[in-house]
């Protein structure tokens, strides 16, 4: 019997198992994570870095800053080192990931939130003890050049406080590497909350939110968002916006209720911009409750603030236009009388 081949197979499959568990499986779970738009923001997270900050990250890696500084906010590190603990998506823009494994100096995952002054960072890099007494960080004087001082300080020289003793007759000017490093450090900040890392102290729920708002939000995603978009901005030239739209925010809700019931056909204007498109009718798809909810939602999202729409208002309108099959035109709608006074 061939002993070596058994040995080979045994080792191979044992190790392949751990490879599948600790490399392949994580790759399937987090290796394909995408940038997301957090619910408290309108931009992709994490945000892209400027070219300068990207260069700064290279300086950070090259000097081995990660030998003494972590960029990992653990559960027990918040709130000292950040507004929330870090999660894997925070690092999606990092190439390479520089998380560090020693915390000789402070964690830097959120240094951009704590220390915003570029001149502070430059003084700190030139002489750490000048701004942090007791620091054990080495000075990075090779990131600066000494220039003969002029009568007045050059714009690009580091400003030191008057009590700081510089060598006489010189001023300290950061090299591009130092400026890039500072740009990188200033950009290290995590402020968005994610599904994986929710706000530990969420703001108290807004008691002014109409009761059917949540139902409307749900319906909007499945029925309206495809054309009017999740952000309520519509698509230029094709689908009108709802955010800030005059039709939506009108105190009299009889017109938008009718638009949702029977649809609308162009040409029409929203906020002075004309559109020539047709909206489909929803009266056979959505109940009175649903239409009231979705209208309440669009009247109170994206900065909109208007009264709640009730199921009674919708059913009153539905009763009046029961026999109508066609979509409305803008002209017809202008002639419609209010159904009832708006709800408080």
């Amino acid at each position, binding site marked *: 019997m061939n002993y070596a081949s058994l040995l080979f197979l045994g080792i191979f499959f044992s190790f392949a198992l751990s490879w599948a568990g600790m490399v392949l499986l994580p790759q399937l779970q987090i290796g394909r994570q995408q940038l997301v738009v957090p619910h408290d923001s309108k931009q992709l997270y994490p945000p892209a870095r400027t070219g300068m900050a990207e260069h700064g990250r290279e300086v950070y890696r090259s000097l081995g800053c990660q030998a003494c500084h972590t960029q990992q906010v653990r559960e027990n590190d918040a709130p000292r080192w950040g507004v929330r603990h870090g999660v894997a998506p925070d690092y999606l823009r990092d190439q390479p990931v520089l998380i560090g494994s020693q*915390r000789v100096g402070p964690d830097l995952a959120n240094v951009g939130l704590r220390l915003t002054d570029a001149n502070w960072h430059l003084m700190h890099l030139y002489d750490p003890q000048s701004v942090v007494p007791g620091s054990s960080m080495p000075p990075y004087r090779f990131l600066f050049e000494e220039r003969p001082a002029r009568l007045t300080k050059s714009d690009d020289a580091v400003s030191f406080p008057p009590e700081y003793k510089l060598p006489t007759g010189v001023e300290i000017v950061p090299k591009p590497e130092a400026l890039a490093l500072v740009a990188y450090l200033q950009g290290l900040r995590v402020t968005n909350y994610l599904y994986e890392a929710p706000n530990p102290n969420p703001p108290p729920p807004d008691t002014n939110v109409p009761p059917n708002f949540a139902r409307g939000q749900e319906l909007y995603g499945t029925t309206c968002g495809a054309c009017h978009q999740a952000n309520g901005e519509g698509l230029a030239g094709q689908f009108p916006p709802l955010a800030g739209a005059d039709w939506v925010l009108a105190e009299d809700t009889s017109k938008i209720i009718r638009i949702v019931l029977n649809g609308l056909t162009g040409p029409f204007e929203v906020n002075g911009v004309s559109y020539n498109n047709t909206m489909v009718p929803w009266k056979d798809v959505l109940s009175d409750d649903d239409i009231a909810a979705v209208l309440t939602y669009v009247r109170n999202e994206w900065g909109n603030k208007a009264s709640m729409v009730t199921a009674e208002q919708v059913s009153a309108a539905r009763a009046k236009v029961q026999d109508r099959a066609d979509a409305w035109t803008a002209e017809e709608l202008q002639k419609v009388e209010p159904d009832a006074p708006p709800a408080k």
Partner: protein
Amino acid sequence: MTASTTQHVQAACPIPATAEEVDASCRGPVLLLFFHSLLWLLAGSVLSWLVAIKMHKGDFLADIQWLTYGRLNPAARAILLYGFASQAGMAVALWLMARLGRTPLVGKPSALVGGMFWNLGVLLGVLGILAGDSTGHDWFEFPRYAAPILFFAFLAIGCAGMFTFAARRECTTYISQWLIFAAFLVFPWIDATANALLICHPARGMMQAVIAYWFANNFLLLWLTPLALAAAFYLIPKIINRPLYSHYLAAVGFWLLVLFSGWGGVPPGARLPSWMAAVSTAASFLVLVPVFTAVMNWRLTIGKDCANVKASLPLRFVMIGAGAYLLSSLLAAGNSLPIVSRTTEFTLFSVGLTQLSVYGFVGMILFGAIYYIVPQLTNTDWKPGPAKMHFLLSVLGILFIVIGFCVGGVIQGNAQNGPEFIKSVKAATPLIGFATLGSLLLILAHAALLSNFISIMRRCCAACCGGRTK
């Protein structure tokens, strides 16, 4: 020793080579690898000492960009891992494969060329880190122009080892051969994975950290550890001249080691889905089982024969290594618990633990192997004075370093989680002083070892060639 194995015995085994034939075939590559590994060891310990001084005095050599702390520290670690431990481990492995297989080394030119390229790779890599080209991943810092050289250099050396195993004339295999076989299979695997997913086609975001954790874990547990265990399993029975207590226990330990080791490495604080750290913690504890089986097996093999252990310098090194193996595995398991890790994770404690594993365990056993193998290859004895000095200084040195960093790390960790972070910066200073002293002792120890080795080579050459170098 191999006569008492319970393994399968094939009929019609070829006539085994004599020990002299085996040693003659190994002499070139093994001594070459040993020599370079000792050179790196000395160079690395000088760098480690500079690093330790910089921990006290940030201003020290601060204006030389190439020697800034963030470059010097990974360079010193890489020298210890790749220049010394891996290289000496491969040399021991080649010799063991030939001796235990009772066959001359197969692929000697391949091993020689591989050895030269390995050193070229380490040299380029270390210079690369000092020049600022580090990848930024712990334990895999060598830049893209050095890391692949190491991979191909290993293939050349590894092929020599594997072909020697295939050409064995002793038909019963021994546990040391299994361990070397496993190490030689795992290293190209983890190295190729790391090269592919950290350098060639970098994975996205935290996936890079996962691969770096996995690489470092397996570099220690399934590359360096099996090489050191192979040497220990050979040297202990051989030197005290008794059969291994239980081959069955060794085999069970081997398979548990191979099965569990690959799952460790992700610290509890990692910014990853928590199942990964949980699996790693479980693995760190499961790995204790093969650790216990190995240490117990050695203990029972020695039995009451402690006099022999004291008399043999190689064995004393191996015993220190065995103790460090047990201790470092226990500390590593403890350190993988979230409640401990929240204090120790980002502190010197983990540095001390690495030193204890890589130097205290792997390094010490490799020293024992070097002290045992070199006289066999050269027919020349070590000078006892420097050898004793090396033993004493290296044991004291690593003791100071481990105590300094591990105790200092706990103090530092408590201060880190305390009200004022700045206090943690200076909290461990007295204990770092301990470690600095330790690293100074290590420089002396390694200088003694290297000079002793050079003296052996000189005397050996003089004996062979009548005093002429050629």
